[in-house]
Structures are given as C-alpha cells and as structure tokens.
C-alpha cells in the first residue's frame, strides 16, 4: 500500500508533488484542530479550581450589581488578585474566545447556578499571558465583567494548542525538505554529469525524479550520446586523413629514389615529405593523446627524462639533465614520453638549448624544462596552449608541426591529473613545468 503511494508520488510532476504536500498538511492541520476542540470542549478543572472561579465570579457580580456605574471599574480593580484579574467594560458586543470550554462552564454553573443567569462564557486564552483561562459575565445593565485566571491543569490544553499551531508548520517544513531533497538529488547528479560531458565515453544519468527532471535527464543523455558520436567521428576523420595521406607520401618518397632525380630536388622534396609526415603524426598524436584506454604503468620518470636528453645530445643538441637519477611514478608511458619529448624539442627549436630537471616535491613529481631562448610574450602564453595556434606566424615558417606540440603536452599531463605551467624566467628564457601526482598503488 505504502509502496503504491511512493510509486504514485514518483510519477508525479513537480506541481503535483507540491499540491500533494499541501493537501497532506491541510488534512493534518484539520485533524489536529478538531482533536484540540474536542479536548478543550470536554475539559474540566479540579474541583477546588472550579470552586475558586465560581466564588470569585459570584462575589464580583454581586458587588458590581449594587455599585454605581462609575465605581465599577474601581471595584474590579480592588477585587483583582494576582491570580484572578477583573476588568469592567461598558455595554457593548463581547468577543468570545475561539476555544470555548463547554464542560468547564457546566462545572462552574453547577457550583453556582446564579452564574447561568449572568450569561457566563469561558474560553481558553489564545496566548497564555495574564492567565490561561479567560471569560466574562454580563451584569443586569448589559455591561461586561471580564476576567483572566490561572488554572493549574489548563497548561496541558495550552500546550496542545501551541502544538496544534506549530505541528502542521513543522510537518510542512519536513515534507518540503524531503520533497526538495528528492527533487534536487537527480539534479545534482545531472550537474556532475554535465561536468564530464565531452570527456570520455558517455555516462548515462539514471532517469529519476519528477517528470520535468526526467525529461531533462533524457535530453541530456541524448546530447551526451550526440557529442560523443561527433567526437568519435572527428577522431575517425582525422585518423583516416592521416592514414590515407601516408600511402601517397610513401609513393612519392620511393619515386624520389629513382636515379634520374636531381639530388638537390630529391633532398628538397624529401625534406617536404618529412615535414608533411610530422604534421600528420602530430595530428594523430593530438587525437590519440587522450590515451584513456591505455592503462597507467609504473615508469621511472627520471630515467625517461634523462634518456630523452641523452638522445637529443647524441644528435648533437645542447641538452643537459640534472636532478634525481631515479623516480618512479604511475602514468601512461607513451603520452608522457611524447609530452617530455615535445617540450625538449620546443626548447631546442626556439631556445637552441635545453636543461631538464626532475625532482620530487611532496606527493608530486616536478619536471622542469628550461631554455635560454626569447620565451613567449606573457599575453600569448594561453594562446600557445591552444591547438593549431602558431605563435611565430610572422617569423620564419621553418617550424615543423601544426601548433599541436604544447596542446599534446597539456592533454597528456591532464589525463594524469597533472598540471603544465609555462612561464618566462626572470633571467630570460622559457620554463615549462610539469607536475604529476606520484600515483597511488
């Protein structure tokens, strides 16, 4: 039964849910109030309390009936005590309390029947201030005597009344809280999902919550699928272009090996072919550099950096390594090796030399690649990290690559939850810093 209600609730939209909650609260309020009326109506005081009220009222009535109209106010004041306060009012309408005490009145009238003649009215005070029970009697000239008094056992009623006021409100709060929470929970997972949109395979968000939210989640899931598909298409297109162009390039290269080709032309064209190959390779590296499908492995990052430096130095470059001789981390080896290699090549290309250093810094590895070149203008550093942006468009176009070198580095480093930082050193030259977490194992 409860399960069916929950299921029904789950199917409802947001406005329906709000209405349902309001309805529940109204019903509870109604039931609580009816119960309270019933209890107040049948309330009786202990005999001594009832006698005290009856006696006081009879005394007040008798005294005031015999007094002049002008003195009655004074008399009321004189007759008042701390626990039983009296006020006289000129004839007029009288306001009856909303919670009448029928049984108590009967109890009091039974003790002093003459009070019935005085049209006794008793009620529970709304706010316990001067007393918790209030009431009035009418004198023969239609003027009113009102009173307030404390009755020992009436506090239970007062408490019930306060509870009657506060309880539905509390319940409304609680239900609203639960409603908002259950409505917002799928919304929160939705927010989490949008953050990952476009990175990696689509992760469908389970369809939960009210109708409107379900529709939103469904739309988002479809969008995820579309984005993923278009990324896959883009990757496939770029890979296919790279792949298909390599065969004609291979033909060109072999044709150049013919005896009849002028050696100078051959060298020139071979250089061009190499450049085209490098462009195609860098596109492929960029597309592949997500590398999420390749598992991370333990590697010696210090040896890796040193080996790359040694290889560059073996080819005649001004490359030096300083730093630790061995430091193990858990990363994807191929993209990270390519990232380091790109930074070293960049330094050699733009700066003419390179100094690589690896050190451990707390729970991270810090790899710095320095050169003594001109650096990058500070306002263009962000541009340098954008794919297909080349900073030296105006200068000599002898740069190989498509402006994918640094973006490849950044992509590879980000995949390992690391950071890449580029800055000009105060003494001149550029410093690229990679920080990689050591990796848990």
């Amino acid at each position: 039964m409860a399960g069916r209600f929950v299921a029904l609730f789950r199917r409802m939209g947001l406005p329906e849910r709000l209405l349902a909650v309001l309805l529940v609260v109204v019903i509870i309020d109604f039931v609580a109030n009816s119960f309270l009326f019933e209890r107040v109506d049948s309330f009786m005081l202990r005999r001594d309390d009832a006698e005290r009220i009856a006696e006081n009222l009879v005394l007040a009535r008798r005294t005031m009936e015999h007094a002049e109209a002008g003195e009655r106010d004074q008399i009321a004041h004189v007759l008042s005590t701390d626990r039983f306060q009296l006020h006289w009012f000129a004839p007029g309408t009288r306001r009856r309390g909303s919670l009448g005490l029928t049984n108590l009145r009967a109890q009091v009238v039974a003790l002093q029947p003459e009070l019935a003649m005085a049209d006794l009215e008793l009620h529970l005070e709304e706010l316990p201030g001067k007393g918790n029970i209030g009431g009035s009697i009418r004198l023969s000239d239609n003027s009113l005597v009102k009173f307030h008094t404390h009755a020992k056992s009436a506090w239970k009623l007062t408490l019930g009344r306060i509870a009657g006021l506060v309880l539905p409100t509390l319940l409304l709060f609680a239900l609203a809280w639960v409603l908002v929470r259950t409505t917002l929970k799928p919304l929160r997972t939705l927010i989490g999902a949008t953050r990952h949109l476009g990175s990696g395979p689509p992760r469908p968000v389970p369809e939960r919550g009210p109708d409107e939210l379900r529709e939103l989640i469904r739309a988002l899931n479809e969008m995820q699928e579309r984005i993923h598909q278009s990324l896959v298409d883009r990757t496939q297109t770029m890979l296919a272009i790279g792949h298909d162009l390599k065969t004609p390039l291979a033909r060109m290269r072999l044709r150049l090996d013919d005896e009849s080709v002028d050696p100078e032309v051959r060298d020139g064209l071979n250089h061009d072919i190499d450049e085209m190959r490098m462009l195609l390779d860098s596109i492929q590296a960029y597309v592949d550099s997500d590398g999420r499908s390749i598992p991370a492995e333990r590697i010696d990052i210090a040896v890796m950096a040193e080996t790359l430096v040694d290889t560059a130095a073996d080819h005649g470059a001004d490359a030096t390594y300083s730093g630790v001789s061995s430091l193990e981390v858990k990363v994807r080896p191929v993209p990270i090796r390519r990232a380091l290699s790109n930074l070293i090549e960049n330094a050699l290309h733009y700066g003419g030399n390179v100094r690589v250093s690896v050190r451990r810094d707390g729970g991270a590895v810090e790899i710095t690649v320095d050169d003594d070149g001109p650096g990058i203008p500070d306002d263009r550093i962000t541009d340098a990290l954008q794919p297909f942006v080349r900073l030296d468009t105006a200068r000599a176009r002898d740069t190989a690559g498509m402006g994918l070198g640094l973006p490849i580095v950044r992509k590879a480093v980000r995949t390992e939850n690391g950071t890449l930082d580029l800055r000009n050193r105060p003494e001149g030259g550029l410093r690229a810093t990679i920080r990689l977490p050591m990796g848990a194992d």
Partner: protein
Amino acid sequence: MTVAPRYRHPHETMTTPSTILLVEDDGALRTLTARALRQSGFNVLTAATGAEMWVTLREATVSLVVLDIMLPGTSGFDLFRRLRRESDVPIIFVSARGSEEDRVLGLELGADDYLAKPFSTRELAARVSAVLRRGGGLDSTSEPVPEMRSADAIRFDGWEVSMARRELRSPSGAIVDLTGAEFDLLSTFLGYPQRVLGRERLMELSRSRIGDSSDRSIDVLVSRLRRKLQAEGSESPIVTVRGVGYMFKAEVIRT
C-alpha cells in the same frame, strides 16, 4: 591450409638473393616498393590481398614477408595473426599509422620489425637485411645469435627485459627507458653473460641489431647503462675488465 615451413639459409652467400614476399594493397606503392627491393638485390614476389599471399606462400619459398597492415582496423592484424600462427617466416609489418601503440602491438604479435610509411629505399633495404641476418644466422660458423623469438622475456637480478617491446623493467616493475643504442648494447650483454667482451666486439655485435645506432663511444653507452641498472642502489651487473673490455656478470634467465 599448409604453408611452406620457414626457409632458413644455412649457407647464405651474396650470390643467392633472398626471396621477399611483399603484401600491399595499393597498386602503385606495390610496384614502387617491389622495384626498391629489387634494386637492393632481393628477389621479390608481390600480393595485393591476403588470399594472394596464402597462394604465393604455398607455391614459393619465402625468406621474409613485408606486410602492409592496411587499415588500422582488424583485417590487417587478423591476417598477421594467422600468418604468425601458421608459419614462423620473419615478418616486417608496414603501417601508415605511425603510432607507438601500433608498433608495440605489432612487435608483441611477433613481428620482427616495424616500418612506418613513408619510408625510403635505403631504410627499407636496411630493415629487411637486418631481419634476414638475425633470422638466418649472421655468421653461421661462430656462436649462434642468442636473441631468439622464443626467448622473449629475459630476467637478471630481478630485472626483466622484453625483446618484443624492447622494454626494460626494474625489479619494482617500473619501465626504465633506454635509448636504442643502449638497448642494443644490453641485448648483446644478455646474449653473452659471464663472458668478457672487448670494446670492438661489443660495438660490432650491438650495431648488427635494429634500432638507431649511435656514434657515442661504447664506454659512454656502458656507463649510461650501468647507471640505469644501478638505480636500486645495488651493484651494477656490468663490470669493467681492465684492458680487455666488459663483462655482464649477472645470471641470465630466459623464459
């Protein structure tokens, strides 16, 4: 289907050229590559498809297959796997995808070498010759070349070397990078454990391997390798034999 067993050249001389089977789907490139191989002194057979390849392999004795992996999909690699299963003819595979993953995958599947498009005649001939030399036994009169396909993983002092991946792993399992020349030097040492090797001999043996050779002196290469193998703080397995050369003293286990 049966395939002619791999033909080993027990007494290869320069007068009997090896037969190379070239499998390439692009017609023009097939013609050009075949011409390049012929110019380098090889006997060349060609095939445009996998089916043609099987026919040729049954009919002729082939010393080496140059196989274009074609599309980066399954077809090329499937063909490759089947060929490797049915014959142990040396294979050089050619790929248009120059990616490292492809290279490693190819070598792990049992390729003898990898060639990325575009390649020059010289590069192609050098690779083919290197693989033939290794497969056929370089100088059959002297000791056999120890690097066999069956012995892929080699262990010493807790270190592990994968010949297919050309990869060295430390005792803690971390990949330790080596330059091409360093790896070739290590492979040579692993082939002649507990034997003193002169500098000249080391140079000669290391150079016969694939991988880019370096003009660094053998002493520089040895000292780099020694430093990398010493990372764990233990004693280096390579010891200097004064006036003679070097010796790899660790015990070598092949699996």
